[in-house]
């Protein structure tokens, strides 16, 4: 475990090399570290940002327990190491949630399905079947409020990002790029290939937590008809 400064008011805990390929194992360690730090309140820590193989820890340097300003970072890093090594091992081994997400793969919503078919040599039906039959894992939530980065995409569906990103992507668009899939929860630009749309709200600032998904969740996509989409959207 490596701890490095992210400026003077945040730091990053790395559970493996920063260029290493993220996997299930590293994500599990990340979630365990998050759980341990949250359950061992350390003065000064404000919030955590887990992502793939790292945990960003934001803190108020003025509230960290340290002998002098010069020792703030070392003192905090020491407290974090202690909290991580101290807590019981299986603390975070609660079964992860499985969230089922309805998706309408109709051409009306699947703006890039034809292009993905050309790139992969698969038919539209094969693409949809591959996409909805896998189980995915949320590696992190970011980019925009509530955007989930999901791993577990079939190797047959690996396509590059679009060469020109769209200026505005419709809310709820389900998209793929590289080895990942995700859902655009708010209006934003974006370069991923859109293959469907979900009627669910993935981000709602009026709710707490505001995002439907969080790091560690398991996700499955269920194909729905256009009529069902309209019904669920109400």
């Amino acid at each position, binding site marked *: 475990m490596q701890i490095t400064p*992210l*400026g003077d008011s945040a730091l990053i805990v790395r559970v493996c090399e920063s*260029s*290493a390929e993220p996997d299930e194992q590293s994500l599990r360690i990340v979630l365990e570290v998050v759980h341990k730090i949250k359950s061992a309140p350390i003065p000064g820590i404000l919030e955590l*940002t887990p*992502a793939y193989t790292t945990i960003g820890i934001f803190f108020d340097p003025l509230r960290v327990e340290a002998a002098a300003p010069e020792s703030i970072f070392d003192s905090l890093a020491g407290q974090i190491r202690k909290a991580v090594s101290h807590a019981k091992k299986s603390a975070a081994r609660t079964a992860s949630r499985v969230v089922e997400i309805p998706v309408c793969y109709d051409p009306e919503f699947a703006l890039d399905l034809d292009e993905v078919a050309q790139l992969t040599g698969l038919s539209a039906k094969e693409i949809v079947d591959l996409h909805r039959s896998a189980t995915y894992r949320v590696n992190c939530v970011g980019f925009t409020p509530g955007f989930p980065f999901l791993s577990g995409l079939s190797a047959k569906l690996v396509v590059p990002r679009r060469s020109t990103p769209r200026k505005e992507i419709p809310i709820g668009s389900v998209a793929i790029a590289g080895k990942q899939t995700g859902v655009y929860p708010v209006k934003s630009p974006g370069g991923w290939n859109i293959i469907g749309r979900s009627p669910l709200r993935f981000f709602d600032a009026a709710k707490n937590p505001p995002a439907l998904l969080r790091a560690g969740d398991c996700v499955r996509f269920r194909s729905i008809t256009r009529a069902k989409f309209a019904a669920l959207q109400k």
Partner: protein
Amino acid sequence: MSATILRAGFLTSIQDLGRTGFREFGVSLGGALDSHALRVANLLVGNDESQPGLEITLGGLRIRFDDERTVAWCGGEFDVRVRSTSLPAGHATSISAGEELIVNPPKLGCRSWLAISGGIAVPIVLGSRSTDLRGTFGGMKGRALRDGDVIPLNKIRRSSALATLRRGRQTAATEKVSSWSAPVNWTTTAKENPVLRFIRGSDWDRFNPSSHLALTNDSFAVSPDSDRMGARLEGTELKRNENVDLVSEAVAPGTIQVPPSGKPIVLLGDCQTIGGYPKIAHVITVDLPVAAQLRAGDTVRFQEISLADAHRLLYERERELERFRIGLSLRSRA
């Protein structure tokens, strides 16, 4: 108990000290890009430091107050007036019911923060009254202010009203603007040739020595596509030793990230929560107010300092702020 936005200007939004606790859901910190300036302006008008104020970008704002208020502002070198009276930065000023305040474009810098006694009464969304312009929530209906908006203000608390009144009495006899002020380096943050101090980022060693030299010696020009997410810079291309793909991880306001173009971006308050570009360095917290003043066409330089020094400077500023608070409370009791 409201104020009417007669002209909203280039970009004016309601901001407080930001939204903490929702980064894991992709929600940015946001808030005043110079939170220290907002804290000082709030203290000057008798508000709690965390009250929301207006962040005014490049001026063009005209606002009319329905009732008597005290206002104060900090930031770039703006020309702020009530009728013919010029309101200097860092001074409390009393405004009568029906009077208009005008913020003209700045001679230097980019943004200013206006605090209004009582504070702005918009709802708390995810723990903050700040406007998240990208997420379109918080502040005034999740958007920048528009011409004709009426912003609700809180009733002035008795204690702060009293303090304001007493301060007012000291000045009312001769002028509406207080003669005393906050330290000038807090209230007037735009610099002619700004230098941002930085500490090394975790990807520092991924960059070649000439890029290290360029970052510490060369000047960079601020590009016009800069915004609340970041100040985009142009100059010597910063190059990496090898182009390995990095896994996305947390970034913070102040992070200097370098996309494949080699043009560095200094991230500001509305930056994304995670990023995959290498982080060559981080601007220190006490210099973020200077970064928030960078405007298209400005040039900026960087200077390396140690993490310990960054923390020492932050402690010093906090001590001075505490002295300032005590000074203010003595003044209002006088």
